[in-house]
């Protein structure tokens, strides 16, 4: 079905159209939610709440942009709000000036599939994970991230640099382990 027709039917409250729209984006959006959370259960909770927001605010989508991008923004905001609201993530989201890891400017070659890379990102402390997702994957600027997270632009930059360095270390280690495994099998 054409997207504009699908949108019109959804706004009229047709369940079949709503389900169709859901099916169109649900897989990629669950992937997004998975990156921001620590478990698949949490990811599905975010996905569920995000889609409810999408349908309840569909009248606000004027159709001038891409619907996928609009839904994606809602999912990102829903994920961040979810993390902020969950007490188990509270400590990790509060940023301190303490430097935990050295800053790296390396650009390693990525030989990981999407699931493995996402799992490495999810191993980052939740604050680093969120900033990494927002900056590296969603393309937000540090000023915007600062507003969203309630931190300064400088804190966002430094936290990102540390997250990046930590991830590169793990990716490199992961590659080395894979190579060792391959040699061992030979």
């Amino acid at each position: 079905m054409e997207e504009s027709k699908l949108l019109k039917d959804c706004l009229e409250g047709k369940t079949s159209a709503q389900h169709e729209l859901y099916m169109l984006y649900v897989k990629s959006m669950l992937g997004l939610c998975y990156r921001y959370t620590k478990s698949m259960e949490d990811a599905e909770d975010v996905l569920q709440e995000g889609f409810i927001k999408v349908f309840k605010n569909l009248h606000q989508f004027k159709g001038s942009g891409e619907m996928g991008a609009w839904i994606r923004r809602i999912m990102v905001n829903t994920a961040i709000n979810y993390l902020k609201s969950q007490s188990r993530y509270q400590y990790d989201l509060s940023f301190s000036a303490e430097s935990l890891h050295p800053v790296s400017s390396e650009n390693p070659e990525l030989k990981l599939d999407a699931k493995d890379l996402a799992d490495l990102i999810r191993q980052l402390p939740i604050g680093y994970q969120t900033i990494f997702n927002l900056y590296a994957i969603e393309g937000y600027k540090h000023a915007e991230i600062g507003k969203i997270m309630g931190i300064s632009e400088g804190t966002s930059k430094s936290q990102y640099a540390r997250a990046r360095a930590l991830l590169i270390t793990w990716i490199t280690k992961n590659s080395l382990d894979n190579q060792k495994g391959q040699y061992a099998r030979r």
Partner: protein
Amino acid sequence: MHEDKFENEVQKIMDQLSFDPADTVWSNVAKGIGKDKKRRGPLFWIFLIAGPIIIGGGYFFITNNRLEKASVINRSEKASAFNSLTKTDSLQLKQSGNETAMNSDLKKDQIVKKSAQTLNRPVGRINEDRALMHSDYGINARTTEHSKEEIKLNSEKNESTLAGSETIVRTDSSSTEKSKQAGAIKQPVAGDSVAHTQIAKNKDKKPTKWKIGFSGSAGISELHQDPVNQAYLFAPVTGTATGTPGNPYHAPVLSGFSFSAGGFVSRSLSGRLSISGGLNYHYYSTKTDIGGVINNSTYNNNLAATPYYAPAPSANDSSHSYTNQYHFLELPVLIDFALNKSKDISVIWEAGFSFSYLVSTNALYYDPASNLYYKNMQLYNRTQWNVSTALMMGLNRQHNQLLFGPQIQYGLSNLLKSSAVDPQHFFSYGLKISFILHNK
């Protein structure tokens, strides 16, 4: 697109990340979307039941009052008919010394009709008619002094009972007038002139049924999803907030100050019941925690409204409480029912509805796509229907009445145009004061 190779590669790989969700996700989403429709169900039934009860109650009181009036009119007509009969034929009755036997209401009614006809006839016919009446309705020629006195007492009693009412003035004067025209009335007795003077005085004292007054109220206003549950925004939570399991994204809309002021006219429907209509200015407010103003160009979204406000940041950053203000013009129609009959302190139960128009608002609306608040009046229903009730105590001083007491008001209409989002209804409660002028 990032300039760094690493970020670009990460983006490309992550775009491929996808999973199949559990089936329960869609069923929960569908349930979440349909929740609003279900919520309106009980509200509909509450008002469907309450509406007829209020209307029926009002109809009962009004009808009851009319029946009472009609009964008063009948009695006064009968009394005046008997008066005229007694006056015109008193001498004849005395001479004949006959006794009347008019005990049943049926007979009295028939006599009233006959006497009314008689009064319009020439003098010469009256005696004939009287003779006819006596034979028709069993009035014997034997009327004792005792029964005559009884008739006289009854008619005086009717006059004294009904003194002051509009009905007795009209009935009595009309019958007197007719009697005069017929030329059949003898000189009025002393008691009659006293009664007529009293009636004239009462006529002068007739109280007006219309009154004017001023009213005002002050209290708290809230936004509710339904009469019981307070509204929550799909809104960002603060960095320090902790959500509740299963409901983590809802930020409460805090209550604010509300007041109203206006004038009204009131009309008495009966001794206890009155109806009033007026014009009020009504101010509602609610509060939301927000961050600073955001430059519109920063956010490439689909929204046309400006300015944008950031969600409330963490406790370390500056945030402030924003007051959503709503300005309404309101046309209330209220029924007042006096619960007691005290002349000094009255207790009044007031109930009714009002139609209101949203003149302006600066209320913020949350956009989940940009994670920002913004103002847009187009999102609100400007016309609203409300129901209200109050329990008022009235102090009567120097012909004026001061009423005050607790009042609650609930908005029946959804404040938001979209039926897809959680509905918002105004709920306000506080103290109401009314001042009625010249409450004679």
